[in-house]
């Protein structure tokens, strides 16, 4: 899947990032193409959400670069970064809706902040976005009254209300019932294609992500260990990819967290 440099929307090169002593990324390279649904996959704790925050400029890398539309995100001024973020949407794992505002006001929030629109126009725009996620009838509900799946759909409507060029999805399928999951899977693909977006999904839900992703990057031990279409990865001979895609409990990623031997722990000196 080689594309021209014009096709590349996000270009991550040699990215290194640590939290204290713990190395999260040790030279990550990946390219996200325009118009595609790209997935970053890996087990919990591999830094998938951290990677989204690095792309969005909320965290700074120790080394390496993140270019979006050819511009280094971490070399931008505060003003430039915020101008870029107006063209990026992000769906947080929790939805991150404002709990003191109704569904309508949550979706209207970016418009009220960035666009000086007459109230009737704003209302129509918000209702159209809510209609797209099937929640126009829930406009007056408060976030506390929504189910997890509904909250994520409202967050999705809010993420697309400024018509961004790209949406970052942080674990969109985690903790969803099958119906909500199916709805989100189809919405993400539909939004990407009808609104001409580029989508980046971080997830560990193999089946759902494989249904809609054009390209998958698999993270392990701070690096991208494999990338390709879901079909290509399903055929991969890598033991790591096989373990992840087939949900095997043991393999290159051990079942046990590193620890002294059980005998030493049970029979050794007591603290």
């Amino acid at each position, binding site marked *: 899947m080689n594309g021209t440099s014009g096709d590349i929307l996000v270009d991550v090169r040699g990215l290194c990032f640590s939290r204290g002593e713990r190395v999260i990324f040790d030279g990550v390279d990946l390219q996200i193409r325009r118009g595609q649904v790209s997935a970053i996959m890996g087990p919990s704790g591999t830094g998938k959400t951290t990677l989204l925050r690095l792309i969005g400029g909320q965290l700074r890398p120790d080394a390496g670069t993140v270019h979006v539309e050819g511009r280094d995100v971490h070399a931008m001024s505060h003003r430039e970064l*915020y101008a870029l*973020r107006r063209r*990026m*949407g992000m769906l947080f794992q*929790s939805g*991150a809706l404002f709990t003191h505002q109704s569904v309508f006001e949550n979706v209207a929030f970016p418009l009220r*902040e960035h666009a000086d629109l007459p109230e009737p126009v704003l209302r129509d725009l918000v209702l159209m976005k809510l209609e797209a996620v099937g929640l126009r009838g829930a406009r007056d509900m408060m976030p506390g009254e929504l189910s997890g799946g509904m909250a994520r759909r409202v967050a999705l409507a809010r993420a697309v209300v400024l018509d961004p060029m790209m949406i970052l999805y942080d674990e969109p399928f985690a903790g969803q019932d099958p119906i909500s999951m199916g709805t989100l899977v189809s919405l993400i693909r539909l939004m990407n294609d009808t609104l001409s977006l580029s989508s980046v999904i971080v997830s560990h839900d193999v089946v759902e992500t494989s249904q809609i992703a054009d390209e998958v990057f698999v993270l392990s031990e701070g690096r991208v260990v494999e990338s390709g279409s879901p079909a290509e990865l399903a055929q991969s001979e890598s033991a790591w990819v096989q373990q992840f895609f087939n949900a095997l409990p043991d393999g290159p990623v051990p079942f046990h967290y590193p620890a002294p031997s059980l005998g030493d722990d049970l029979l050794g000196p007591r603290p």
Partner: protein
Amino acid sequence: MMGLFAGLGRRTIDSFGRLGRGTMFLLRALAGMPGLLLRPGLVMQQLYAIGVLSLLIIMVSGTFVGMVLALQGYNTLVTFGAEQSLGVLVALSLLRELGPVVTALLFGGRAGSALTAEIGLMKTTEQLSSMEMMAVDPMRRIIAPRLLAGFLAMPLLAAIFSFLGIMGAHVVSTAALGVDDGAFWSQMQAAVDFREDVMNGVIKSLVFGFVASWIAVYEGYDAVPTSEGVSRATTRTVVHTSLAVLGLDFVLTAVMFG
């Protein structure tokens, strides 16, 4: 022994680190203030949440503090035959000290803790992060209006506290203790100086309002994003606000009246 020194050193360095981060945070919040001129509604909302919703506790406390002050003051003054000066004692105590200080302590417990918990929970539930990703700066949208509202609300609350304290004292003095109504007001009018007493009290309130609001919003913003972290931050707000207000009160009193 070495462990003790190491722990002490670590705590000292941590404290200075927090102070430095808090100062940088304050500068960023102050930089967001000019934008509020274009959106006064944001400050109004916070004035309601911080000021209006604190009115009940301030009014009740002020009235009772004034009434107790009258009872205690009368017992002392009557032994010198100076009970007609009760109005002066109550007014000076409230305007110079009790009004600003007790209001600030109540503010820290009621509005300050609420601010910290609100901002801390916004951080825990990623609302602040989502705001950043929507290209909305939380320092301008969330922190600056709350900081300004706290600064503006405190002198108003302290004025209401002192006013109701004086009225409470007046009721107790004239109705229960037999102090002459005319003497109560005329002696107060003669002894209380607007600049020396009233304005110095207002200055104290402004300083306390600024410091208490700064502590509350910073603790919320700096909270560890867990339920325990928010709980600790809320506790720290009340403790730090109380200590800062009492310490600053001594310094300001020494400068103003020393």
